């Protein structure tokens, strides 16, 4: 297990993965600055 969260950066790809894995999505809008 990685010692950090492996974030998707593309919502469409995340939803496709969620469908494959039958999991919900945690969507985090953040300020990268």
């Amino acid at each position: 297990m990685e010692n950090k969260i492996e974030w998707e950066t593309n919502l469409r790809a995340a939803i496709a993965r969620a469908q494959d894995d039958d999991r919900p999505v945690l969507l985090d809008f953040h300020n990268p600055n």
Partner: protein
Amino acid sequence: MDAVTYPNLDVIRFIQGHVVPVRLPFDAKPEANDFKVKWTPTLIILDHDGGEHHRITGFLAPEELLPMILLGIGKAHFEREAFTEAIRSLDALLKDYPKSDSAPQAIYYRAVSQYKSTHSAEPLKEAYQKLHAEYPSSEWTKRAAPYRLL
């Protein structure tokens, strides 16, 4: 979130095991507009079709983020009328995070899930009694107040 919550090992394990995490900048187009994001952090639980079920704006410590996610998962199940799965997620929240800010809402939705699946009003009344006893100042205690009369 980056300094405290996301580096937490329990948070990493939980997120990797329960959800697909996706992170976008606050001005990502079209997503920030689609989700009407006005402040950060904004955390949203989506089902696997992209439908929104729960959102929180502002910092969450690890002991609040994990129950927030469980509540979102429970609400996603509830809103597609998968009441057994909703109750399972909400039970996990109440077992592991009974002192969290998400707990009163979990009690409320757990009771409504029970009512919707059994048509017995007893869980609603019990939920009000529990909320009144353990979370007297919660908004969810106020929302459940009519159930005291059942």
